[in-house]
């Protein structure tokens, strides 16, 4: 009886803590969505604070018709998708080489990649900006796509190195004894087995590129070429009652990341725990 009492107490505490944490975590998003559906009249008054009344979609209409939000959305999709494909391709083959192949300098490259992953963007953004300027790529989406591998590639590589190392080497050896080449063993055996890991790594690369702020803020000077995070931030301080359409923009910016996350949560959580810091 004593054991059961302790167990009940334990789960009561656990559920209470979970409930509080969940409210703290989700409230800002709830508030974002509610605000985005409030009309201007309701914003000025404090009537029905916690629910839109009436339910207004004027913020979304205003956002899409009167601002450059749609263009920014296109820019963000283009930049994030391109840099994700690039980072995933480069990171996958690189991680395989660093995890499995035997060649001189492998250990050095593995360390260099890891250290690169740890170098913060705040010390790289000015020289990278000068570099892109020198190449005539500042103020262009190409410049962002060229700069984003500085953080996406080391991250994807590091994540997938852990993944590849966890796949038994005997599988490849067996395939090579049966006549497969080294590349064949990688392409036909390891790659299909690592599909969940590659997917998780790709998703993280996508969210990183989608969320990136500093480079996009510094590189892009043309208002039409902004990405979503910088575009959204540029709404601040417009007019005092601009919160409605700012929040509708925030909702639309969060949407793809959260939808992908809900569908692929299992892979992302596993990828993060198995790959980035393994105990």
């Amino acid at each position, binding site marked *: 009886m004593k054991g059961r009492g302790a167990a009940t107490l334990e*789960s009561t505490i656990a559920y209470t803590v979970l409930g509080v944490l969940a409210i703290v975590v989700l409230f800002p998003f709830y508030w974002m969505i509610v605000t985005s559906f409030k009309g201007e009249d309701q914003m000025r008054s404090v009537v029905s604070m916690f629910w839109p009344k009436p339910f207004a979609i004027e913020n979304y209409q205003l956002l899409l018709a009167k601002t450059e939000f749609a263009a920014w959305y296109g820019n963000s999709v283009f930049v994030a998708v391109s840099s994700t494909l690039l980072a995933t391709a480069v990171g996958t083959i690189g991680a395989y080489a660093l995890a499995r192949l035997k060649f001189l300098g492998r250990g050095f490259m593995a360390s260099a990649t890891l250290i690169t992953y740890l170098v913060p963007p705040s010390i790289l953004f000015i020289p990278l900006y000068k570099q892109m300027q020198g190449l005539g790529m500042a103020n262009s989406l190409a410049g962002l796509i060229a700069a984003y591998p500085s953080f996406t590639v080391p991250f994807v590589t590091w994540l997938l190195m852990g993944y590849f190392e966890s796949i038994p080497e005997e599988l490849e050896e067996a395939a090579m004894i049966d006549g497969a080449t080294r590349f064949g063993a990688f392409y036909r055996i390891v790659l299909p087995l690592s599909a969940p890991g590659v997917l998780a790594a790709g998703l993280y690369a996508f969210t990183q590129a989608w969320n990136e702020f500093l480079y996009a803020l510094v590189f892009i000077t043309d208002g039409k070429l902004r990405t979503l995070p910088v575009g959204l931030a540029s709404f601040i301080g417009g007019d005092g009652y601009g919160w409605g359409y700012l929040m509708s923009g925030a909702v639309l910016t969060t949407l793809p990341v959260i939808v992908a996350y809900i569908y692929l949560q299992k892979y992302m959580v596993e990828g993060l725990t198995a790959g980035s810091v393994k105990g």
Partner: protein
Amino acid sequence: MAVPAAELRSKAVVSGSGTVGLRRVLGPDYRMGYLFVLPIAICVLSLVAYPFCYAIYLSMTHKLVGMPPIFVGFENYIRLTWDGFFQRAVVNSFIFTFGSVIFKLGLGVVMALVLTSRIRWRSFWTGVLLVPWVAPTVVSALNFLWMFDGSLGVLNYLLVRVFRILPQGVGWLSEPGTAMASVVAVNVWRGFPFFGISFLAGMKAIPGELYEAAAVDGANPLQRFRHITLPGIRNIMIIVVLLSTIWTFNDFQIIYILTKGGPGGTTMVMPVFTYETAFGAQRLGEAIAVALYLLPVLAVTIMVLARYMRQGRRR
């Protein structure tokens, strides 16, 4: 490997042919290895190593936007050392970083503990608590900017009108007394799930028999936590704390969006100071000196962290 090393060696001795000799020096998989690593190498060299060296050079110049750089040695660093605004940014950066990391550590442990306890829908709860980590930081920062708003913000509405804790609203981000605590809160909110999920993975790896044995020996929950759980996740804790320290110290967007360093410089941290010096005051050389000022500390942290991370992988 398909070809045993000994066989390889004997082949090299017998034939002495170029390819086999190269294989001996460069390793059996050198062709595919170098081919596969080449893109990463280009990326690391052109996007990190070169800009990094260029940054060190620029930090030793007087560089105004649109003018050629003039080499001045360590002048920027020396000037900064005695600059009151810079000193304040350094102090603020440390307050912001350590304040945030301590709370993230505490909340992360709590999150991992409740997620490993007897609950249903574990993966659902894990998914919910990870949301701040996945959502775009700019969006989260804007949400808090709106909630913290002095006149129309929901936080004041809740505290004053609903719960009646405060007599009147507070300008969370516009008053010097509360601005730093507010930006720390946002950073903690966004970052604690990463601590939690990492500790969760570490706790799952601790063998259950250890807890059973401790229970048989009469250890209470607190003792079990201190003597089994904590040592079990020690290495992960070190990694996560160091990683988060680097990230938090260099966090730009939360503070840039919430306060831009204000009010009156109370939340001015080094990354925002760097940005303002470069693109507000247009002094690039000095701006990079700000960013690189604590490079020795950063370098040591990165080296220690990289060691732990590689060790963690090898086990």
